[in-house]
């Protein structure tokens, strides 16, 4: 299929946009990356995602697909001859979807909260940190169970849950720059090793933004809004 048949509307810094890009890389599917300008939504975005007007959007032929995890599942089911992204066992699939939903609904909002309360009192920050670390402890447990001793949640290779969590590693590292340890060699050894393996993977390397670049962007954005880009 020609590269021009597959387009991603997105932004380099968005963890949600990273997800379908990693998925397409896993499947060795070429695509055109259309970068949205900060603060300005293109006509194509508004037309392709009239409900939310948000990135990422995958446009396959003339069909738009929205919502990052919906897109990842679409990619897995469309290019089914490539390496599988969702687990093959039905129960394992439900488990992967459960944790991906937990990450999006609970864990990432806790990470965002830490950034938002930067300017506020120590108490507000302490509560946000407590929630985040409680969450990462749960994810460490989940990793031990799902990986069964292998490198990734998905086993030997990157899968759905690896993509769901791994896409936040850039912003996690930015948050750690302020002195907070989230991935701890003693408390979350599994995830520490996992994070290294994930970032080194060929499907991830070229789309994972550099922590330094993200930190620069954060400084500019937070001066305006006090929150990481929640596309």
């Amino acid at each position, binding site marked *: 299929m020609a590269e021009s048949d597959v387009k991603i509307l997105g932004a380099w810094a968005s963890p949600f946009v990273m997800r379908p890009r990693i998925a397409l890389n896993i499947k060795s599917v070429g695509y055109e990356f259309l970068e949205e300008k900060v603060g300005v939504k293109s006509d194509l975005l508004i037309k392709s995602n009239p409900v939310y007007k948000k990135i990422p959007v995958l446009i396959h032929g003339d069909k738009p*697909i929205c919502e990052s995890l919906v897109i990842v599942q679409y990619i897995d089911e469309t290019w089914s001859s490539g390496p599988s992204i969702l687990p093959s066992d039905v129960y394992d699939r*439900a488990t992967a979807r459960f944790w991906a939903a937990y990450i999006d609904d609970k864990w990432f909002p806790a990470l965002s909260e830490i950034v938002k309360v930067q300017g506020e009192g120590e108490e507000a920050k302490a509560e946000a940190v407590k929630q985040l670390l409680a969450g990462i402890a749960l994810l460490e447990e989940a990793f031990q169970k799902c990986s069964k001793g292998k490198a990734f949640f998905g086993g030997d290779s990157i899968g759905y849950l690896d993509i769901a969590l791994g896409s936040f590693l850039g912003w996690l590292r930015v948050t750690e720059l302020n002195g907070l340890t989230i991935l701890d060699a003693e408390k979350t050894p599994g995830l520490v090793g996992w994070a290294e393996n994930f970032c080194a993977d060929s499907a991830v390397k070229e789309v994972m933004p550099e922590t330094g670049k993200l930190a620069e962007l954060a400084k500019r954005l937070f001066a305006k809004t006090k929150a990481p880009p929640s596309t």
Partner: protein
Amino acid sequence: MADEITLLDFWPSPFGMRVRLALTLKGIDYIYKEENLQQKSDLLLKSNPIHKKIPTMIHNGNPISESLIMVQYIDETWPKSSSLLPSDPYGRSQSRFWADYVDKKVYDCGRRTCFAKSPEEGDAAVKELLECLKVVECELGEKLYFGGENLGYVDVALVPFYSWFYAYESFGGLSIRDECPKIVAWAKRCLENESVAKSLPDQQKIYEFVVTMRKKFGVE
């Protein structure tokens, strides 16, 4: 070996109704256990330690929670009868997108409509509720069901909220029938299906439940 399924649930929950409906549509037997949300059972706390919420299903000893994840699990475990998700990847992506939209919008606006602490909060909730129902109505278009000719994933995701419509209308001061006639027609069409009729409580019962809860929350 016969499948053993227990569903931990709470009768007014639209999320629980989704799972009841999916199991009933597929003709799957299960044991229904009503939870007292003020005193959650050990089984619920053990089966869903992260969220401690209903619905939670235990299938041959394995717990599954989060209603839409449960519905997909049911669809994938029993694929032969009444497929809920379409077979083509694009159709599946659209179904997932719209079920997710229902999750993000309808429940929250509906809850705020019923339990608003001020007229301003209530008005804002009603406005948002109607907006999202109209978006969904537009997506339905002229189709019989969101699933096309038959009930599908999005129908299962949304139809439970129909049992709450009378409560939304009474406390929100709106007529969903007037504002979103196609949605009401669609819901009534769904209710002609025996499985749907069995899985959804009566609107009057939900209304009375909300009355009791409003007194409890001191919203009167």
